[in-house]
Structure formats: structure tokens, C-alpha cells
């Protein structure tokens, strides 16, 4: 890649963040904002180093990521399985789809008081909220992906001797994959949202606890570290999803690099 093209592709996306960061540094230095309200970048950095040094950062990070991951696997697994079942079997769809749609229309975060009553304030409650948030996008997109498989391709495969298992493996699942991955991307966003909210329910660990605790003691710099950690994890998850897409959807004209 030529120097100019390289600069455009790799460096340009970082231009705006770099400008914002510089503005933050300048404003903090000239004392325009009170450090209580909005700490300077070097204070945030120092807070982060302290937490990392004492091991607290990693502990809370691991716990939050673990909750998110477990909730994603449970909610995503159920959503995927149900989406497949309802997509492939008209009987299953008639039985189950309406019920799922009815539950979907209740904003899951509004269920928090109910969740606390059912699960208490321990890990189960948080994982349940994450799982519930993740379930619907994955269910809907898996279902849609299976239902919109090109019938011409199915007919061709049947004529070429493929039966049920072969049809699923060779035609239905790969055809549904782009839609399923859209669901995964969307679900990842909801996963973090649900986790952040769930971690505001009385917690004793996790990034949310870090933030809540810091707020009690007016440690705004730690609060900002927590926020930055959340956004870092979000970006990581998104990159993971994109990597998955790039690998699994190499054949798709819309996803090909270039």
C-alpha cells in the first residue's frame, strides 16, 4: 500500500479521537474544568496504573467479562437453538414464536425489580439479565436467516441428491450465517448494556462495583477508568465479531476485502 493510502486507511480513523484527547489535555492543564468533575487524562492514567498494580483491575475485569460471556452463551445458545427449531419446523414455529414475540416486547431492563425478587442480588440475577438481553436479537436473526434461504438453491441441492442433514449442512446453515452474524453483532451490544445495568444492582465485584464504589468516594478518575474499561471490552467484542464475519463470510461479495 502506498504511503498516502496507508495514512488514509489506518491513521485517519484515529484523527478525531486524537484531537479530542488533545483538547482534553489542554483543558485540564489550563484548569478550565474542576478535576473533581472531570479529571485530567494523566490522573485517569495514574488511577488505572494503581488499580492494575494492586491486581484489582484484572480481578474486576475478569469477573465482568465472565458474567457477560456466560450470559451471552446461555442466552445466545437458547436463542440460536430456538431460532433454528422455529425456522426449520413449521409446527415449532406455530407453537413457540408468538410466545417469544410477546415476551420480546417487554423491555428486559424494566424487569429488574422482578429479577431481584426471583434471583436475589447475586450472580444469577446479572447473568439472567444479560442472557435475556442477548436472546432476542440472536433468536430473531437466526429465525429470519433460516426462513430466507433461497428456495432455488434448496431445490437444486435436492435434485443433486442431498437429503435432510446434507441440505442443512450444505445449504441452509451457510445461507443463514450472514443473518445469524448480524444477530451476534447486535446481541454483543445488548450484552454490554445489560451487564452495565445489571452491575448497578448491589454488587460486590466487577467493573460496575468499581464504578459505584468510586462514586461513593468521589473518585471520578476511577469512575472514568471503569467507563473506559467497558468501552474497551465493547470494542474487543466487536472486533471479535468482525473477525468472525471476515473469516466465515469470505465468499460474500459485500464482505470481501478490497
Amino acid at each position, binding site marked *: 500500500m502506498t504511503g498516502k493510502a496507508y495514512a488514509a486507511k489506518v491513521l485517519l480513523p484515529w484523527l478525531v479521537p486524537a484531537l479530542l484527547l488533545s483538547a482534553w489535555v489542554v483543558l485540564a492543564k489550563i484548569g478550565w474544568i474542576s478535576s473533581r468533575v472531570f479529571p485530567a487524562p494523566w490522573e485517569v492514567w495514574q488511577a488505572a496504573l494503581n488499580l492494575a498494580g494492586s491486581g484489582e483491575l484484572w480481578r474486576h475485569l475478569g469477573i465482568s467479562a465472565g458474567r457477560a460471556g456466560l450470559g451471552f452463551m446461555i442466552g445466545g445458545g437458547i436463542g440460536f437453538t430456538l431460532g433454528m427449531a422455529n425456522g426449520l419446523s413449521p409446527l415449532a414455529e406455530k407453537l413457540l414464536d408468538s410466545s417469544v414475540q410477546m415476551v420480546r416486547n417487554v423491555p428486559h431492563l424494566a424487569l429488574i425489580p422482578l429479577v431481584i425478587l426471583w434471583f436475589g442480588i447475586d450472580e444469577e440475577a446479572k447473568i439472567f439479565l444479560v442472557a435475556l438481553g442477548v436472546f432476542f436479537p440472536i433468536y430473531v436473526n437466526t429465525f429470519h436467516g433460516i426462513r430466507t434461504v433461497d428456495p*432455488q*438453491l434448496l*431445490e*437444486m*441441492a*435436492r*435434485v*443433486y*441428491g*442431498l437429503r435432510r442433514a*446434507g441440505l442443512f449442512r*450444505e*445449504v441452509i446453515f*451457510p*445461507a443463514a*450465517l450472514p443473518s445469524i452474524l448480524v444477530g451476534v453483532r447486535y446481541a454483543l451490544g445488548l450484552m454490554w448494556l445489560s451487564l452495565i445495568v445489571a452491575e448497578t444492582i448491589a454488587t460486590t465485584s466487577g467493573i460496575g462495583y468499581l464504578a459505584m464504589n468510586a462514586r461513593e468516594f468521589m473518585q471520578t478518575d476511577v469512575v472514568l477508568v471503569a467507563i473506559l474499561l467497558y468501552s474497551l471490552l465493547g470494542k474487543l467484542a466487536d472486533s471479535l465479531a468482525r473477525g468472525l464475519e471476515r473469516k466465515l463470510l*469470505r*465468499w*460474500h*461479495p459485500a464482505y*470481501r476485502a478490497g
Partner: protein
Amino acid sequence: MPSKILPFNRKPGGAPAGGLSTSLRGVAKMYAGLPVLRPLDLQIEAGEFVAVVGRSGCGKSTLLRLIAGLETPCQGEIRHDGQIRQTLGGDIRVMFQEARLLPWRSLLDNVGIGLTGDWQAAALDTLREVGLQGREHDWPAVLSGGQKQRVALARALASHPRLLLLDEPLGALDALTRIEMQNLIESLWLEQGFSAVLVTHDVAEAVALADRVILLEDGGIGLDIAVNLPRPRQRGEAAFARIEGEVLRRVLGQQTPNQPAATQHI
């Protein structure tokens, strides 16, 4: 000449399996109460190349789909080598108007669909026969329409079928690609000896490829003439033009010059 690979249905040391013979007896088909095909009889001999022509909506695609087993007749029965088939596939292959390639598989994998055992060599060989050697690892998305249909043809022939059904496969291609594909189909048919049924709206294509041209009109067989021209067929020759003209006049509802003019149905 491309190298010969033993097809999977050939007994070792035995004669080539050749084509299927297909017979339709009293076959009729209705859609939503309207008759598309009235009870008709048709016999296709092993290794014969039959073309079915007719106006849009005359039922020629339906006839092909019935022979393929994609639809079941409302009346009558269809037998291949004397047997009624219960399942799809086997030694019957279809080439559709669209290439219908799996976009998520390489060309090689597409050609090898449904094949078992050591199929890669046979698939590569068929790709070479249609002129796409060296491209076996490409995605279908990078191909042109004509190239995609060539892959579809390779896919249809990779398993050495005994009956090849072609449902207007060249309709979406430009005129020159169409002629090249026709020559390719003819040469592969001469080499492998399968039975073939070609549905087409292009009368010239029918006369260029087939031993026999059947005209479907009003849900039945209106014309069934043999094309006894030597192969490879020469399009410009008088005999070719005469047969083509005769069929075309019948398709368009005009009478032949010897008979009194009848009302024209256009």
C-alpha cells in the same frame, strides 16, 4: 481430447452405462384447477437428445420438472428404465435456467456437490472439460453469467448422469456465449452418451442440438419430428434452415407454404 475418468456408475471393465430410457404414459398435470398438461405419452430412448419447444406457458418446463421428479403427475406414470422413481437424484441431473451455484463454496466444491468417495479428481476433470481449469478455488461471485453456467454444466456432468435435463439453461446468456455452450453440450453428449431433454424457446438451438424436436401446444404434443442432420450441425445450411423454419412456423401458428393459410394466433 480430455482424459477419460471412469464414472461412478460404470462397472469396472464393463461397457459405459449409457443413457436412461424414459417413458411417460397418460401423464397430466393441473395447477389450481387449470390443466397445464393434458394426458400425453412420450417415449425417450436411451442416449437420445430430445428438445421440447413451445410458447411461454405451454407447459414445457412443467414437463421437464415431472420427468425430473420435482413434481408429481396428477395422472399417469413416468418410468425410467421401466422403474418409477421415488427419490430425487441418482443418475438424473438437472441444469436450471439460473446457475444456482452455492455462493459459499469454491467452484470445485460446487462441481462436487452430492459426490462421494474420491471425487476431486473427477470434478477437476469436468471443470477442465468446460474450460475452467485453474479456477477451481475461486468463489462463484467472481464469475460471469456464462462462466457460472459452465460450472453448472460441469456440476451436472461430474457424476456422469444417464439422463440430463436442461431447463432453458442458456436463456440468460448472450448470443455468442450461447452458441459456444451449445457446442460444448453437444460434444459432451457425444462423448458420454447420456439421454438428454432440452427445454428451450429458441428453435435454432433445438434444431442444432436435438435428434428429435417436440412442440408442446395446448398441453399436448403438437409436433414430433426427427432431425436427421449429420453432426456437428452446421447452422447456415439449407437443411438446417428448412427444419428450423418448419418448426418455427408451427410454433407461431402459421401453416406451411403448401397448405391453405389459417388464422394466425399471435
